[in-house]
């Protein structure tokens, strides 16, 4: 087994032994089932066509809960890298230490996410039928993309901040900016830019946040773009059907770039 794979296994074993994933699986599972039941009862189970309506409610849960948890988890894992003096003295690249931590967190929290959304999926399937079930699976994929991206961003924050307290503080602030700041910037852009010219800017703005990218991508799965706001409408106008691919690419970019920066930062740091 290569040193990097050994390191990944070591980190995965440590992450599985931690309680974060178990708590997340239980909490997210309960919340998802609750949202699914409320969604079904609000619409009237008989009137609901399978997964579509409830999934939009679950998407809101995903875009609020997953990023904040992933940012904080990633930030703590990143800050803790500076305590790994022994691991850093082994013949492994520092960047691989960061990567293995990201992979371990993504796999464990991803499994917890699957448990949560899977539980809700079972409830929806039993009560409202399996129509649009494949779209629900894609929604889970979107949730995993958001998780991977925000974990990577959190790791970069943690590696840069160096201490847990500072890292968590910055992570919460970044979450707030990503979830609210982009919407405020869109409102500002609409007010400032001349009518008809705002489309490309608003589309770019949508991709400037992994949370908004994930939300717009999730909504597009259920043809619910109408609730994606002005940025989502602009994306449809500018990129049409390629919008979903652009959003997916943005989420992958939001994973790769922070992860690379975290690896570089950690490689150059004194422990």
């Amino acid at each position: 087994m290569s040193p990097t794979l050994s390191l990944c296994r070591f980190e995965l074993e440590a992450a599985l032994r931690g309680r974060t994933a178990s708590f997340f699986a239980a909490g997210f599972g309960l919340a998802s089932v609750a949202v699914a039941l409320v969604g079904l009862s609000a619409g009237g189970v008989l009137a609901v066509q399978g997964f579509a309506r409830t999934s939009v409610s679950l998407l809101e849960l995903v875009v609020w809960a997953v990023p904040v948890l992933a940012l904080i988890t990633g930030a703590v894992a990143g800050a803790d890298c500076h305590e790994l003096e022994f691991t850093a003295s082994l013949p492994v690249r520092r960047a691989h230490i960061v990567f293995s931590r990201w992979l371990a967190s993504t796999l464990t929290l991803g499994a917890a996410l699957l448990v949560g959304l899977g539980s809700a999926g079972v409830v929806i399937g039993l009560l409202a039928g399996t129509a649009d079930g494949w779209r629900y699976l894609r929604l889970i994929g979107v949730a995993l993309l958001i998780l991977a991206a925000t974990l990577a961003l959190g790791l970069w924050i943690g590696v840069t901040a160096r201490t847990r307290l500072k890292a968590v503080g910055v992570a919460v602030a970044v979450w707030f900016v990503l979830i609210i700041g982009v919407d405020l910037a869109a409102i500002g852009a609409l007010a400032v830019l001349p009518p008809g010219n705002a489309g490309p800017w608003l589309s770019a703005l949508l991709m400037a946040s992994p949370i908004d990218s994930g939300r717009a991508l999730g909504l597009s799965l259920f043809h619910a773009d109408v609730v994606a706001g002005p940025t989502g409408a602009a994306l449809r106008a500018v990129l049409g059907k390629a919008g979903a691919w652009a959003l997916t690419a943005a989420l992958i970019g939001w994973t790769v770039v922070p992860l690379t920066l975290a690896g570089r930062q950690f490689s150059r740091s004194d422990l």
Partner: protein
Amino acid sequence: MIRLEQLQKSYGARPALEPITLAVAPGEVVALVGPNGAGKSTTLRSLAGIVRPSGGHAFIAGHDVVTDSVAARSRLGYLSQRLGVPASTVVRDLVRLVASVRGVAPAMAVQTLTTAGLGDRLRSTFGELSGGQRQRLMIALATLGPVTALLLDEPGISLDAEGSEEVRRAICEARDRGTAVLFASHQLHDVALLADRIVVMVQGRVVAQGSLAELAQAAGVACDGAPPEPPIERIYRILVSRGRDSAASHLTLVREDAA
């Protein structure tokens, strides 16, 4: 082989290590001694790749510790004063990781642990071990595999008499295998027993180096081992005091074969 060429380290504007040139030959044991803040740990941490040197070069088995760091660390065993392992880490996982990255069979790694008296602690977490057990574990892991250079930062700390004896034995065994050993210690008795050469550091500078006899001569102390105190403690006090007295007083004894 461990080699430092004008290696230096600064934290911002504050120099932690003035340019230091030093070599440790295969099978040689060299001790770094000096008061707190002398630069002993910084020297070892720079060699282990834990901190980046601000200048100069350092080599482990011919590999530059900055530009060829993975290859350098593949021949290096390092014991940090801080140990640097999360408390929740399970001993078995740690052993498996080290064995895997060093290309050692897991059974051999477990055998090493058993020899160190930790065979029954494989399922424990690092936090559950006593201070002495942690130290013994980390020394066992540092010496595991094809290590040709061993860096030990305060290896005798937290250890009882039996543990200290084990450390001395581990250092002697490493030396007998042809490993270059560089260790930092405040335990001057161990230094006198183990080191072929002693490097005295003060405020980031090497103020003296040589064998115990050479240092005794430089300090003007008769090396007769007479009570009430071992000569090394007197030698140490004199040399450190001189080093502190004047930044310009670079009293340096360098053995030609070690330079």
